[in-house]
């Protein structure tokens, strides 16, 4: 039998990058926790608390009957209290998950676009992924926010690094110095009449070249004397910037950590540059 997986493997295992699919949003470490229809609510609440979840699918074997949530529990207590008020006192812990689950929601497929499910997420705070015989995962509004943050943050961190380097150069090299000095270190990169003279017109790669060029010792009090180390770090940052901005690949968790650390490092260098006497300018 040829499965769908075979077809993909036949394609060389290259899964297209599908950034808007629900599949991308599900937290990869999620373990789906379910309860039976007769689970006491105290037990269900303890499970929610233990796992830090807000919803539990209520199952009867393979079949999903509904969802138990803090909200569905609250609504059930109110309803039961009203019903039983006239006759006898009502004990909220006497309920089971079957007594207070909300209706079976619509099921999203892993390949659906999450953007098309925003209304559903907005109205009930979550989305169930799978089908009636197999709940695969739950996606919450917070999962969507986390995912969007994850894919956006490398761009923001790189932009911050670029701005910090620009700030350092602008402190160390007044405009007059920049106009005369920069063509020397960017001469082999641009045609003679196209060399940028304003920091605003330069790329991150240009900033890196200026800082590590070695002709301006005024960068030494900021970055130290280990020019090889500074060059390695800034070149690596610039390479990663090109990979990210040209969508060549995803940023690895280690690279993300490095980026965040580079940002902090460059911010601290901006502070050092700002504290230098003005006469430390270009020599």
């Amino acid at each position, binding site marked *: 039998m*040829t499965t769908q997986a075979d077809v993909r493997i036949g394609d060389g295992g290259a899964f297209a990058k599908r950034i808007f699919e629900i599949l991308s949003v599900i937290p990869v470490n999620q373990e789906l926790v379910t309860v039976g229809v007769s689970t006491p609510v105290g037990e269900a609440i303890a499970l929610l608390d233990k796992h830090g979840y807000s919803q539990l699918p209520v199952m009867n074997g393979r079949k999903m009957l509904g969802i138990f949530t803090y909200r569905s529990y609250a609504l059930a207590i109110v309803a039961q209290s009203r019903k039983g008020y006239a006759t006898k006192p009502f004990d909220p812990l006497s309920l089971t998950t079957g007594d207070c689950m909300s209706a079976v929601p619509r099921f999203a497929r892993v390949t659906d676009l999450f953007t098309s499910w925003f209304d559903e997420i907005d109205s009930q705070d979550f989305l169930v992924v799978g089908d009636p015989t197999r709940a*695969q995962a739950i996606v919450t509004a917070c999962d969507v926010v986390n995912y969007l943050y994850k894919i956006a943050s490398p761009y923001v961190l790189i932009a911050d690094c670029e701005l910090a380097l620009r700030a350092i150069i602008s402190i160390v090299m007044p405009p007059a110095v920049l106009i005369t000095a920069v063509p020397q270190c960017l001469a082999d990169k641009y045609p003679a009449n196209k060399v940028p003279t304003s920091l605003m017109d330069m790329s991150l790669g240009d900033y890196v070249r200026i800082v590590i060029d070695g002709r301006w010792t005024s960068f030494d009090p900021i970055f130290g004397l280990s020019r*090889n180390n500074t060059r390695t770090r800034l070149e690596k940052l610039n390479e990663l910037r090109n990979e990210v901005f040209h969508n060549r690949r995803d940023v690895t968790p280690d690279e993300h950590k490095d980026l965040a650390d580079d940002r902090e490092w460059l911010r601290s260098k901006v502070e050092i540059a700002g504290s230098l006497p003005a006469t430390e300018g270009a020599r």
Partner: protein
Amino acid sequence: MTAPATAEYFANRGCMPDQAQFAADFFAPEAPRIFTLISPSGTGKGFTAAEICSYFVTSGGHERVLVVTGRRELANQFEDLLRSRNPELPVVVVTRRIYWELEADVAADVDLWPARGVVIIALDILQHEDVRKGLLLGSWGLLVLDDPGPHDADAANAAFLLVTQFSETRILYLTRNIPTNIDWPVRPATAGERGWSAMGWLASWGFGAIGAIAGTMPIGISATGSGPASAFEEDRVVTWTRDLDMSSEPSHDVVAEVGWMTFARIPEERALVSRLQQLLGSMCPDAENRQLALTICKAAASCTYSLEYALRGLRIERNRIMHGMSQHPATDDSSVVELAEVLRRLIPLIEAVPADSKTKALIDAIEAMPIDVPGRARGCVFTRFASTVDYLKSTLGEQFDNVYTLSNRMTAEKRSRVVRDCAEAQGILIFTTGVSMDLPPTGLLLLYDLPAHSAILDARFSQFVQVCGGTPPCVLAFEDTTRSLEIEAVEREAFKARRPPDDADITKAVFPNPPSAAGLD
């Protein structure tokens, strides 16, 4: 195929003699169900396993192989390795998302795996119950367990469960070592505990009588393990140990002769490593900080950039711990915090180092090598650290044209292209790991860092001899005449004697004056 014919087949595929023999033994008609392959990192376990997987699916009359690796990066590396050895072999690396997608394509409780091919899965994915249940829905001809080294107990238990459940499946267990300092049989690790090896104890718990078929048993294991998995009592574990047994003949055809290039650390460099040793010298060694401190000392021996990079990682982990965000909260957190806080004092000293004496010696060695053979790299530079690869790429790039790097992050296709381009351009190649990597022909192999074990050098050297058409390259390593870093001297002496460094010597080099030795007891 007869056993000699099978061995010849694997030799023709590029396996070293021991690798080919191991693979032939594995496919022998009366071969035991379970094989263990013990050898140090970088001696070709993965390469041999990839060849076995490929043969198993394409010629062995079987359909499916499951490979369990440690970290996820290793799963991708194994995929690349398989693809480079056999581009026709269907291979998939299972991530959680791919699992969900495969699951969604079929009805509940139906075998969701590809009908034929190799499925690779990392331990962190295997820990999920739904994935483990899914694996049990399929039938697997061969299970390859690649020992991930120290890992947590949950991961170990996940792998252990798999072995007990696959009672008919052939098993190939790859490991660097089975430790001698534990009682056999050992107990399984408990939740939250960090073991020395997720699967090391599998070898004793899961597998029954241990017997050696190939090679000797140099590591002193003669115990029989009888754990809860009685299904394995009739199985045997085969060890492939000759790489570890340095008293016997080396496993490869050629042994590298190493020439030593001397350099002298400048005063600022000496001040830095001296301060590092002084700071560590005041600390009390324990299991956790010993490993961290050792890594940091080795990074310092490599280059100041790698030292800085290691300290950066330590500081990030320290901050995570302090903010309650550590990924592996454990009792060793205090060691990380203490080390990070003590060693942060090194940063100003790193920034004050104006030159790099070791890299200057490296540049001198490369410049002394004439460029006169077309299609041959000018030199290949080995280092242990990925951060040193970055550093050398940047620093050598200032001096030479055509500096290339190889890393495990690259796809097999990209690695092949880099090797080809480097040879054509007579460039300089910087690389770190993996005996399975393609390498270009060259006349000069430079050991910027010493490999962890001389057997690793022999394995890599054999590869160079092969690609150089039988002409061995000149091998140069670096020696600091000021002897300012103890760990460097200990490793160098062990390397010269072709033996692993002694544990006690290493500890003494990293923590020369622990407080307990000063009479605190």
